[in-house]
Protein backbone atom coordinates (compact mmCIF):
# COMPACT_ATOMS: atom_id res chain seq x y z
CA UNK A 1 0.00 0.00 0.00
CA UNK A 2 1.63 3.19 -1.12
CA UNK A 3 0.90 6.68 0.15
CA UNK A 4 -1.19 7.54 -2.89
CA UNK A 5 -3.47 4.56 -2.31
CA UNK A 6 -4.09 5.69 1.25
CA UNK A 7 -4.85 9.24 0.11
CA UNK A 8 -7.27 7.91 -2.49
CA UNK A 9 -8.98 5.64 0.05
CA UNK A 10 -9.45 8.57 2.43
CA UNK A 11 -10.92 10.62 -0.42
CA UNK A 12 -13.23 7.72 -1.19
CA UNK A 13 -14.62 7.68 2.34
CA UNK A 14 -14.99 11.47 2.37
CA UNK A 15 -16.84 11.40 -0.96
CA UNK A 16 -19.13 8.59 0.19
CA UNK A 17 -20.05 10.53 3.31
CA UNK A 18 -20.42 13.84 1.47
CA UNK A 19 -22.92 12.38 -1.01
CA UNK A 20 -25.45 11.81 1.74
CA UNK A 21 -24.75 14.98 3.70
CA UNK A 22 -24.99 17.50 0.87
CA UNK A 23 -28.21 19.49 0.67
CA UNK A 24 -28.20 20.11 -3.08
CA UNK A 25 -28.98 16.96 -5.09
CA UNK A 26 -27.04 18.17 -8.13
CA UNK A 27 -23.89 18.53 -6.04
CA UNK A 28 -24.49 15.08 -4.55
CA UNK A 29 -24.50 13.58 -8.03
CA UNK A 30 -21.28 15.39 -8.93
CA UNK A 31 -19.63 14.06 -5.76
CA UNK A 32 -20.90 10.60 -6.63
CA UNK A 33 -19.22 10.99 -10.02
CA UNK A 34 -15.95 11.89 -8.30
CA UNK A 35 -16.38 8.81 -6.10
CA UNK A 36 -16.61 6.61 -9.20
CA UNK A 37 -13.53 8.22 -10.74
CA UNK A 38 -11.49 7.65 -7.57
CA UNK A 39 -12.78 4.08 -7.46
CA UNK A 40 -11.64 3.47 -11.03
CA UNK A 41 -8.14 4.75 -10.20
CA UNK A 42 -8.08 2.42 -7.20
CA UNK A 43 -9.14 -0.51 -9.39
CA UNK A 44 -6.25 0.39 -11.68
CA UNK A 45 -3.84 0.36 -8.73
CA UNK A 46 -5.21 -3.02 -7.61
CA UNK A 47 -4.20 -4.34 -11.05
CA UNK A 48 -7.66 -4.92 -12.46
CA UNK A 49 -7.84 -2.65 -15.53
CA UNK A 50 -10.94 -4.46 -16.84
CA UNK A 51 -12.94 -3.19 -13.89
CA UNK A 52 -11.33 0.25 -14.10
CA UNK A 53 -12.60 0.79 -17.67
CA UNK A 54 -16.09 -0.38 -16.77
CA UNK A 55 -16.21 1.73 -13.62
CA UNK A 56 -15.07 4.86 -15.48
CA UNK A 57 -17.61 4.35 -18.29
CA UNK A 58 -20.62 3.16 -16.28
CA UNK A 59 -20.09 4.63 -12.81
CA UNK A 60 -18.75 8.04 -13.73
CA UNK A 61 -20.48 8.44 -17.08
CA UNK A 62 -23.73 6.66 -17.66
CA UNK A 63 -25.11 6.39 -14.12
CA UNK A 64 -24.60 10.08 -13.40
CA UNK A 65 -26.13 10.95 -16.76
CA UNK A 66 -29.24 8.94 -15.94
CA UNK A 67 -29.41 10.74 -12.58
CA UNK A 68 -29.18 14.10 -14.36
CA UNK A 69 -31.94 13.16 -16.79
CA UNK A 70 -34.15 12.00 -13.92
CA UNK A 71 -33.53 15.24 -12.01
CA UNK A 72 -34.43 17.21 -15.09
CA UNK A 73 -37.62 15.19 -15.51
CA UNK A 74 -38.76 15.92 -11.97
CA UNK A 75 -37.55 19.53 -12.37
CA UNK A 76 -35.16 19.64 -9.48
CA UNK A 77 -32.06 20.64 -11.39
CA UNK A 78 -32.51 24.42 -11.12
CA UNK A 79 -35.19 27.05 -10.75
CA UNK A 80 -34.06 28.93 -13.84
CA UNK A 81 -35.32 26.18 -16.11
CA UNK A 82 -38.88 26.69 -15.00
CA UNK A 83 -38.72 30.38 -15.74
CA UNK A 84 -37.43 29.67 -19.21
CA UNK A 85 -40.22 27.18 -19.74
CA UNK A 86 -42.86 29.68 -18.80
CA UNK A 87 -41.47 32.39 -21.03
CA UNK A 88 -40.51 30.08 -23.88
CA UNK A 89 -43.86 28.45 -24.45
Amino acid at each position, binding site marked *: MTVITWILLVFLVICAAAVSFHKNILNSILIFMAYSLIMSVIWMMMESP*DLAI*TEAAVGAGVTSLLFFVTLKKIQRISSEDEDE*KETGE
Partner: protein
Amino acid sequence: MSRKRPQEEYNSSLAYRFRRWMNGEKDPFVGTLEMKPPAPLEDPEQIYEPSDYEEIKKKSREYSCNERLKTYSKVYIAVSILICLLLIMILVYAVSYLPSVGGESNPTNNEVPERYITEGLQETGAVNIVTGVILNYRSFDTFGEVTVLFIATCCVMILIMVENEEKRKKLKLDDYGLEPLYDTVLRKVAKIVCPVIFLFGIYIILNGHLSPGGGFSGGAVIGAGLILYAASFGFKSTQRFFNEKIYVIVKVTALLMYGLIALYFFLTGANGLEHIFPLGVPGDILSGGIILPINICVGTEVACTIYAFYALFRRGGL
Protein backbone atom coordinates in the same frame (compact mmCIF):
# COMPACT_ATOMS: atom_id res chain seq x y z
CA MET B 1 -67.14 -25.43 -27.82
CA SER B 2 -66.98 -28.43 -25.52
CA ARG B 3 -68.67 -31.70 -26.17
CA LYS B 4 -68.58 -33.25 -22.71
CA ARG B 5 -69.39 -30.37 -20.41
CA PRO B 6 -72.33 -27.97 -20.46
CA GLN B 7 -71.64 -24.58 -21.93
CA GLU B 8 -71.95 -22.56 -18.68
CA GLU B 9 -69.47 -24.71 -16.83
CA TYR B 10 -67.07 -24.55 -19.73
CA ASN B 11 -67.34 -20.79 -19.89
CA SER B 12 -65.89 -20.42 -16.40
CA SER B 13 -63.09 -22.93 -16.89
CA LEU B 14 -59.42 -22.15 -17.36
CA ALA B 15 -59.28 -23.78 -20.78
CA TYR B 16 -62.00 -21.54 -22.18
CA ARG B 17 -60.23 -18.40 -20.96
CA PHE B 18 -56.94 -19.67 -22.33
CA ARG B 19 -58.61 -20.37 -25.67
CA ARG B 20 -60.07 -16.88 -25.82
CA TRP B 21 -56.70 -15.41 -24.92
CA MET B 22 -55.05 -17.50 -27.66
CA ASN B 23 -57.54 -16.28 -30.23
CA GLY B 24 -56.95 -12.70 -29.13
CA GLU B 25 -60.56 -12.10 -28.17
CA LYS B 26 -59.89 -10.93 -24.66
CA ASP B 27 -56.86 -9.93 -22.67
CA PRO B 28 -57.37 -11.27 -19.13
CA PHE B 29 -55.14 -8.58 -17.67
CA VAL B 30 -56.97 -5.58 -19.05
CA GLY B 31 -58.77 -3.80 -16.26
CA THR B 32 -57.28 -5.91 -13.49
CA LEU B 33 -53.60 -5.00 -13.49
CA GLU B 34 -53.56 -1.31 -14.23
CA MET B 35 -53.00 1.07 -11.37
CA LYS B 36 -55.96 3.26 -10.69
CA PRO B 37 -55.46 6.73 -9.29
CA PRO B 38 -56.47 6.87 -5.62
CA ALA B 39 -59.73 8.53 -4.73
CA PRO B 40 -59.20 12.25 -4.16
CA LEU B 41 -58.63 13.07 -0.53
CA GLU B 42 -61.16 15.12 1.26
CA ASP B 43 -60.08 18.69 0.94
CA PRO B 44 -58.86 19.82 4.35
CA GLU B 45 -59.59 23.40 3.49
CA GLN B 46 -63.29 22.67 3.67
CA ILE B 47 -63.05 21.62 7.31
CA TYR B 48 -61.09 24.64 8.47
CA GLU B 49 -61.27 28.19 7.32
CA PRO B 50 -58.65 28.85 4.63
CA SER B 51 -56.80 31.33 6.83
CA ASP B 52 -56.77 28.84 9.71
CA TYR B 53 -55.49 26.15 7.40
CA GLU B 54 -52.58 28.30 6.29
CA GLU B 55 -51.77 29.07 9.90
CA ILE B 56 -51.83 25.40 10.88
CA LYS B 57 -49.68 24.47 7.93
CA LYS B 58 -47.16 27.12 8.89
CA LYS B 59 -46.95 26.16 12.54
CA SER B 60 -47.18 22.37 12.33
CA ARG B 61 -43.47 22.08 11.50
CA GLU B 62 -42.27 24.54 14.10
CA TYR B 63 -40.57 23.04 17.11
CA SER B 64 -41.80 25.68 19.52
CA CYS B 65 -45.43 24.78 18.81
CA ASN B 66 -45.01 21.06 18.47
CA GLU B 67 -43.35 19.39 21.42
CA ARG B 68 -43.74 15.88 20.08
CA LEU B 69 -41.99 16.74 16.83
CA LYS B 70 -39.07 18.14 18.79
CA THR B 71 -38.51 15.00 20.84
CA TYR B 72 -39.15 12.81 17.84
CA SER B 73 -36.48 14.51 15.73
CA LYS B 74 -33.96 14.33 18.56
CA VAL B 75 -34.62 10.62 19.14
CA TYR B 76 -34.53 10.02 15.40
CA ILE B 77 -31.08 11.56 15.01
CA ALA B 78 -29.69 9.73 18.04
CA VAL B 79 -31.05 6.35 16.95
CA SER B 80 -29.88 6.76 13.37
CA ILE B 81 -26.34 7.61 14.49
CA LEU B 82 -26.38 4.65 16.86
CA ILE B 83 -27.54 2.22 14.16
CA CYS B 84 -24.95 3.60 11.74
CA LEU B 85 -22.12 3.15 14.24
CA LEU B 86 -23.33 -0.36 15.06
CA LEU B 87 -23.39 -1.30 11.40
CA ILE B 88 -19.91 0.13 10.83
CA MET B 89 -18.61 -1.80 13.83
CA ILE B 90 -20.10 -5.08 12.61
CA LEU B 91 -18.70 -4.60 9.12
CA VAL B 92 -15.22 -3.61 10.33
CA TYR B 93 -15.25 -6.59 12.70
CA ALA B 94 -16.15 -8.89 9.78
CA VAL B 95 -13.51 -7.35 7.51
CA SER B 96 -10.79 -7.83 10.13
CA TYR B 97 -11.28 -11.59 9.77
CA LEU B 98 -10.63 -11.56 6.01
CA PRO B 99 -7.29 -13.00 4.93
CA SER B 100 -4.70 -10.55 3.64
CA VAL B 101 -4.61 -9.78 -0.07
CA GLY B 102 -2.41 -12.17 -2.01
CA GLY B 103 -1.51 -14.32 0.98
CA GLU B 104 -0.15 -17.77 0.28
CA SER B 105 -2.50 -19.64 2.61
CA ASN B 106 -5.68 -17.91 1.40
CA PRO B 107 -8.66 -20.18 0.79
CA THR B 108 -8.90 -18.87 -2.79
CA ASN B 109 -5.43 -20.17 -3.48
CA ASN B 110 -6.54 -23.66 -4.48
CA GLU B 111 -6.42 -25.78 -7.64
CA VAL B 112 -8.97 -23.69 -9.59
CA PRO B 113 -6.94 -20.48 -10.16
CA GLU B 114 -3.83 -22.62 -10.57
CA ARG B 115 -5.49 -24.41 -13.48
CA TYR B 116 -6.71 -21.09 -14.93
CA ILE B 117 -3.22 -19.60 -14.78
CA THR B 118 -1.23 -22.58 -16.01
CA GLU B 119 -3.54 -24.02 -18.65
CA GLY B 120 -5.90 -21.15 -19.44
CA LEU B 121 -3.89 -20.03 -22.43
CA GLN B 122 -3.87 -23.46 -24.07
CA GLU B 123 -7.52 -24.19 -23.31
CA THR B 124 -9.12 -20.85 -24.16
CA GLY B 125 -6.56 -19.24 -26.45
CA ALA B 126 -6.98 -15.90 -24.66
CA VAL B 127 -3.93 -13.94 -23.61
CA ASN B 128 -6.07 -11.95 -21.17
CA ILE B 129 -6.91 -14.63 -18.63
CA VAL B 130 -9.73 -12.59 -17.07
CA THR B 131 -11.71 -12.59 -20.31
CA GLY B 132 -10.84 -16.24 -20.81
CA VAL B 133 -12.36 -17.11 -17.44
CA ILE B 134 -15.42 -14.89 -17.85
CA LEU B 135 -16.34 -15.85 -21.40
CA ASN B 136 -15.04 -19.38 -21.73
CA TYR B 137 -14.95 -21.24 -18.43
CA ARG B 138 -17.87 -19.28 -17.02
CA SER B 139 -19.76 -18.27 -20.13
CA PHE B 140 -22.97 -19.58 -18.60
CA ASP B 141 -22.77 -16.96 -15.82
CA THR B 142 -22.13 -14.25 -18.37
CA PHE B 143 -25.13 -15.44 -20.35
CA GLY B 144 -27.22 -14.91 -17.23
CA GLU B 145 -25.86 -11.39 -16.84
CA VAL B 146 -26.67 -10.51 -20.44
CA THR B 147 -30.17 -11.91 -19.96
CA VAL B 148 -30.56 -9.70 -16.89
CA LEU B 149 -29.63 -6.67 -19.01
CA PHE B 150 -32.18 -7.71 -21.63
CA ILE B 151 -34.93 -8.14 -19.04
CA ALA B 152 -34.05 -4.83 -17.38
CA THR B 153 -34.54 -2.96 -20.65
CA CYS B 154 -37.81 -4.80 -21.23
CA CYS B 155 -39.04 -3.69 -17.79
CA VAL B 156 -38.06 -0.07 -18.37
CA MET B 157 -39.82 -0.20 -21.74
CA ILE B 158 -42.99 -1.59 -20.14
CA LEU B 159 -42.92 1.10 -17.49
CA ILE B 160 -42.14 4.31 -19.37
CA MET B 161 -42.33 3.68 -23.10
CA VAL B 162 -44.91 5.57 -25.14
CA GLU B 163 -45.35 3.77 -28.41
CA ASN B 164 -46.92 6.33 -30.64
CA GLU B 165 -44.87 9.26 -31.92
CA GLU B 166 -47.89 11.57 -31.95
CA LYS B 167 -48.82 10.60 -28.40
CA ARG B 168 -45.28 11.45 -27.33
CA LYS B 169 -45.64 14.89 -28.84
CA LYS B 170 -48.96 15.38 -27.10
CA LEU B 171 -47.50 14.42 -23.70
CA LYS B 172 -44.50 16.71 -24.28
CA LEU B 173 -42.08 14.01 -23.12
CA ASP B 174 -39.36 15.41 -25.34
CA ASP B 175 -37.99 18.24 -23.23
CA TYR B 176 -35.40 19.33 -25.74
CA GLY B 177 -36.98 22.72 -26.11
CA LEU B 178 -35.19 23.88 -22.98
CA GLU B 179 -31.74 22.87 -24.12
CA PRO B 180 -29.10 24.40 -26.31
CA LEU B 181 -29.61 21.84 -29.06
CA TYR B 182 -27.67 23.85 -31.60
CA ASP B 183 -24.89 24.65 -29.18
CA THR B 184 -21.83 25.23 -31.35
CA VAL B 185 -19.22 24.20 -28.79
CA LEU B 186 -21.00 20.95 -27.95
CA ARG B 187 -21.53 20.09 -31.61
CA LYS B 188 -17.93 20.77 -32.64
CA VAL B 189 -16.54 18.82 -29.69
CA ALA B 190 -18.93 15.93 -30.31
CA LYS B 191 -17.98 15.87 -33.98
CA ILE B 192 -14.33 15.36 -33.05
CA VAL B 193 -14.75 13.15 -29.98
CA CYS B 194 -17.60 10.83 -31.03
CA PRO B 195 -15.68 8.86 -33.71
CA VAL B 196 -12.76 8.44 -31.31
CA ILE B 197 -15.08 7.11 -28.59
CA PHE B 198 -16.74 4.67 -30.99
CA LEU B 199 -13.37 3.49 -32.29
CA PHE B 200 -12.06 3.05 -28.75
CA GLY B 201 -15.15 1.04 -27.78
CA ILE B 202 -14.82 -1.20 -30.82
CA TYR B 203 -11.12 -1.63 -30.06
CA ILE B 204 -11.88 -2.66 -26.48
CA ILE B 205 -14.47 -5.20 -27.66
CA LEU B 206 -12.35 -6.72 -30.44
CA ASN B 207 -9.21 -6.82 -28.28
CA GLY B 208 -11.03 -8.26 -25.28
CA HIS B 209 -9.06 -11.49 -25.37
CA LEU B 210 -5.69 -9.76 -25.81
CA SER B 211 -5.78 -6.68 -23.60
CA PRO B 212 -7.84 -5.44 -20.65
CA GLY B 213 -11.47 -4.90 -21.50
CA GLY B 214 -14.13 -6.95 -23.15
CA GLY B 215 -17.77 -6.86 -24.06
CA PHE B 216 -19.08 -5.08 -20.99
CA SER B 217 -16.57 -2.24 -20.85
CA GLY B 218 -16.49 -1.74 -24.62
CA GLY B 219 -20.27 -1.77 -24.81
CA ALA B 220 -20.48 0.81 -22.04
CA VAL B 221 -18.02 3.07 -23.89
CA ILE B 222 -19.99 2.78 -27.15
CA GLY B 223 -23.24 3.45 -25.27
CA ALA B 224 -21.73 6.57 -23.72
CA GLY B 225 -20.65 7.71 -27.19
CA LEU B 226 -24.17 7.16 -28.52
CA ILE B 227 -25.55 9.24 -25.64
CA LEU B 228 -23.13 12.07 -26.43
CA TYR B 229 -24.14 11.93 -30.09
CA ALA B 230 -27.83 12.00 -29.23
CA ALA B 231 -27.36 14.83 -26.73
CA SER B 232 -25.49 17.06 -29.15
CA PHE B 233 -27.23 16.36 -32.46
CA GLY B 234 -30.71 15.42 -31.27
CA PHE B 235 -32.65 12.20 -31.53
CA LYS B 236 -33.57 12.81 -35.16
CA SER B 237 -30.00 12.20 -36.26
CA THR B 238 -29.56 9.05 -34.18
CA GLN B 239 -32.83 7.70 -35.51
CA ARG B 240 -31.33 7.66 -38.99
CA PHE B 241 -29.18 4.67 -38.06
CA PHE B 242 -30.66 3.47 -34.79
CA ASN B 243 -34.43 3.47 -34.57
CA GLU B 244 -36.78 1.16 -32.73
CA LYS B 245 -36.90 -1.48 -35.46
CA ILE B 246 -33.11 -1.77 -35.72
CA TYR B 247 -32.84 -1.71 -31.95
CA VAL B 248 -35.15 -4.71 -31.52
CA ILE B 249 -33.42 -6.66 -34.31
CA VAL B 250 -29.91 -5.98 -32.98
CA LYS B 251 -30.74 -6.69 -29.36
CA VAL B 252 -32.63 -9.92 -29.92
CA THR B 253 -30.09 -11.15 -32.47
CA ALA B 254 -27.19 -10.53 -30.10
CA LEU B 255 -28.88 -12.42 -27.26
CA LEU B 256 -29.92 -15.30 -29.54
CA MET B 257 -26.44 -15.55 -31.04
CA TYR B 258 -24.89 -15.74 -27.60
CA GLY B 259 -27.50 -18.28 -26.53
CA LEU B 260 -26.88 -20.49 -29.56
CA ILE B 261 -23.09 -20.35 -29.22
CA ALA B 262 -23.26 -21.09 -25.49
CA LEU B 263 -25.79 -23.88 -25.98
CA TYR B 264 -23.72 -25.59 -28.65
CA PHE B 265 -20.62 -25.06 -26.55
CA PHE B 266 -22.16 -26.83 -23.56
CA LEU B 267 -23.90 -29.59 -25.50
CA THR B 268 -20.62 -30.63 -27.07
CA GLY B 269 -18.78 -30.56 -23.74
CA ALA B 270 -16.88 -27.36 -24.56
CA ASN B 271 -14.94 -29.14 -27.27
CA GLY B 272 -17.05 -29.07 -30.40
CA LEU B 273 -16.48 -25.54 -31.67
CA GLU B 274 -12.86 -25.86 -32.66
CA HIS B 275 -13.62 -26.37 -36.31
CA ILE B 276 -15.97 -23.37 -36.43
CA PHE B 277 -14.04 -21.03 -34.15
CA PRO B 278 -10.43 -22.27 -34.10
CA LEU B 279 -8.30 -21.28 -31.15
CA GLY B 280 -5.63 -19.90 -33.46
CA VAL B 281 -2.30 -18.42 -32.51
CA PRO B 282 -2.43 -16.68 -29.11
CA GLY B 283 -1.97 -12.97 -29.65
CA ASP B 284 -3.75 -12.73 -33.01
CA ILE B 285 -6.99 -10.81 -33.35
CA LEU B 286 -8.74 -13.83 -34.84
CA SER B 287 -8.00 -16.23 -32.02
CA GLY B 288 -9.48 -17.35 -28.77
CA GLY B 289 -12.24 -19.58 -30.07
CA ILE B 290 -15.70 -18.46 -29.00
CA ILE B 291 -14.45 -15.46 -27.01
CA LEU B 292 -14.41 -13.00 -29.90
CA PRO B 293 -17.97 -13.65 -31.20
CA ILE B 294 -19.35 -13.72 -27.64
CA ASN B 295 -17.55 -10.45 -26.90
CA ILE B 296 -19.19 -8.83 -29.92
CA CYS B 297 -22.64 -10.10 -28.83
CA VAL B 298 -22.18 -8.84 -25.26
CA GLY B 299 -20.83 -5.51 -26.48
CA THR B 300 -23.80 -4.78 -28.75
CA GLU B 301 -26.19 -5.86 -26.01
CA VAL B 302 -24.66 -3.54 -23.41
CA ALA B 303 -24.41 -0.59 -25.82
CA CYS B 304 -28.07 -1.04 -26.81
CA THR B 305 -29.13 -1.24 -23.16
CA ILE B 306 -27.32 1.93 -22.13
CA TYR B 307 -28.54 3.96 -25.08
CA ALA B 308 -32.08 2.63 -24.63
CA PHE B 309 -32.13 3.69 -20.98
CA TYR B 310 -31.10 7.20 -21.93
CA ALA B 311 -33.57 7.48 -24.80
CA LEU B 312 -36.45 6.03 -22.78
CA PHE B 313 -35.76 8.31 -19.82
CA ARG B 314 -35.47 11.24 -22.16
CA ARG B 315 -38.42 11.01 -24.48
CA GLY B 316 -40.28 7.81 -23.67
CA GLY B 317 -39.22 6.05 -26.85
CA LEU B 318 -36.25 5.14 -28.95
